[in-house]
């Protein structure tokens, strides 16, 4: 991928917490409309990577570019308005607001131009319509995850960072969620999909990178990753086996 094709460029990003390096020189690119899988054992820095890209904290070193603009250290609300959004590993909707209010606020404040999908479409797309007038507090965890995604979509994003959205879903929900993500990618929304469940990830994309201890140890196809000696070694006894 040339510079020109990349929507997101992460370059030599280091994230230190005290003396500990959660990310230790990570670089990768995501093209417009591409889905990239981000794998790695627990504590390898996947969520930290999403946090840095979405502006939760500025990286200790390195740079992040979005649509050829340097966005390193920019605040999340500015990034949202530029077209970057995300979901959370454990969902974080506005609990005291209704489902519809959650989505409407994101459209009102984060929305860029006119939405290709209206609020009603988004609610339908993520099967949230029947709860629209309920406080988000009353949703179960799978529904709250969908609401996180609905809120992200309401900002009309060009890139969505998705943090373990499959964890805890039942087989039917998993299949539907994979469909959803494929549909988003086919609409030209780029996705960075952090996932432990490989059977889910392979429904969404084939291109993955693998992190271990804050370093990238593999980049290529998911199929090839499964046979890579180092990947197998770091995943021994964890989800990659089962997946």
């Amino acid at each position: 991928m040339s510079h020109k094709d990349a929507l997101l460029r992460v370059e030599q990003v280091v994230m230190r917490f005290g003396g500990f390096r959660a990310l230790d020189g990570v670089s990768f690119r995501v093209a417009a409309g591409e889905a990239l899988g981000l794998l790695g054992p627990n504590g390898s820095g996947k969520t930290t990577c999403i946090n840095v890209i979405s502006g939760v904290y500025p990286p200790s070193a390195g740079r992040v570019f979005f649509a050829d603009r340097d966005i390193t250290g920019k605040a999340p609300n500015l990034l949202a308005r530029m077209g970057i959004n995300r979901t959370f590993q454990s969902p974080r909707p506005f609990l005291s607001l209704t489902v519809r209010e959650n989505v409407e606020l994101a459209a009102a404040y984060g929305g860029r131009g006119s939405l290709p999908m209206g609020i009603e479409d988004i609610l339908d797309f993520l099967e949230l319509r029947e709860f629209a007038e309920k406080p988000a507090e009353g949703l179960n965890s799978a529904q709250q995850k969908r609401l996180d995604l609905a809120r992200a979509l309401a900002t009309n994003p060009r890139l969505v960072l998705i943090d373990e959205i499959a964890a805890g879903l039942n087989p039917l929900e998993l299949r539907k969620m994979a469909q959803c993500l494929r549909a988003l990618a086919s609409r030209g929304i780029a996705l960075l999909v952090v996932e432990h469940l490989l059977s889910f990830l392979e429904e969404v994309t084939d291109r993955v990178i693998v992190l271990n201890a804050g370093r990238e140890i593999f980049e290529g196809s998911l199929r090839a990753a499964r046979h890579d000696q180092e990947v197998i070694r770091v995943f021994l006894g964890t989800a990659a086996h089962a997946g």
Partner: protein
Amino acid sequence: MPNYVRDFVFVLLPLLVLLGVLPFFYRNELLLFNFTIYFALAQGLNVIYGFTGYLPFGYVGFFGVGAYGFALAIIHLTTSPALALAIAGLAALVLGVILIPLLRLSGAYFAIANLAAAQAVYHIVSNPDLQDITKGPYGVSLANVFAPRLSYYSALAITALASVVVIWFRNSRFGLALQAIRDDSLSAAMAGIPVVRQRTIAWLLSALIAGLTGGVFAWHISVFYPETAFDISISIFALVFALFGGATTLLGPVIGVLLLYGLYNLIGITIPQYFQLIYGILIVVLVLFLPQGIVSLVSRRGIRVP
């Protein structure tokens, strides 16, 4: 009927009419005045606590600065009371701006830091070395502008202003965004909400309301001391009234003031120190067990409380 009209017609209007006519029938005007002051302060607290979750134990700091802003404008600048009130509001705004960094603190840290800030302002104002400016611990007298009726109705206007801010927050996208920030500030930022700016606006509005209230208080009671204007029990009372009734609603703080300040005046006035203690403990109990106040006993059932 739109919700904001409902809030106005069913809560604010009756309250204003009641407080507006009562002085013609009821002799104890100071008591009415104090009720009015607490209606304003409880709604001012509602603006910050109900919509952002910050619990400002030092809220009285804005009130005290407003009272002194008013008094010093009268004494040193010999302004009209109206202009002095504007200066009272401005003084509280300035303190609010100085304290903006406190908004980075969360929970109990914010509450304590805010209380400490109010104490610091009190010690500056009451410092005998500043006697030439603030009259230090000896207090101020504003007998030359004394106008009980006018200051009473000014207090009522400030109560109306504070209530209108609450109605606005309850029924606008701006207020909804504040509640989103209160629920989860990172999510709110990811939804594109300018978290810092929104919070700051709510904080300054809340400070302004307390400052104006302090100014009108100074005008009405005419003679006061630093420990009157910076009395921590003003914070505690305003907090407990808003919390008890139910923050985020317009009706909650009104109920809180009517019941708890009523109770205080019935039996507490002879033993004020116990009430400060009891109401202090009540704040903790409410935050832990009934954070949405007594109106939530109704709103829990899906009924919209104004």
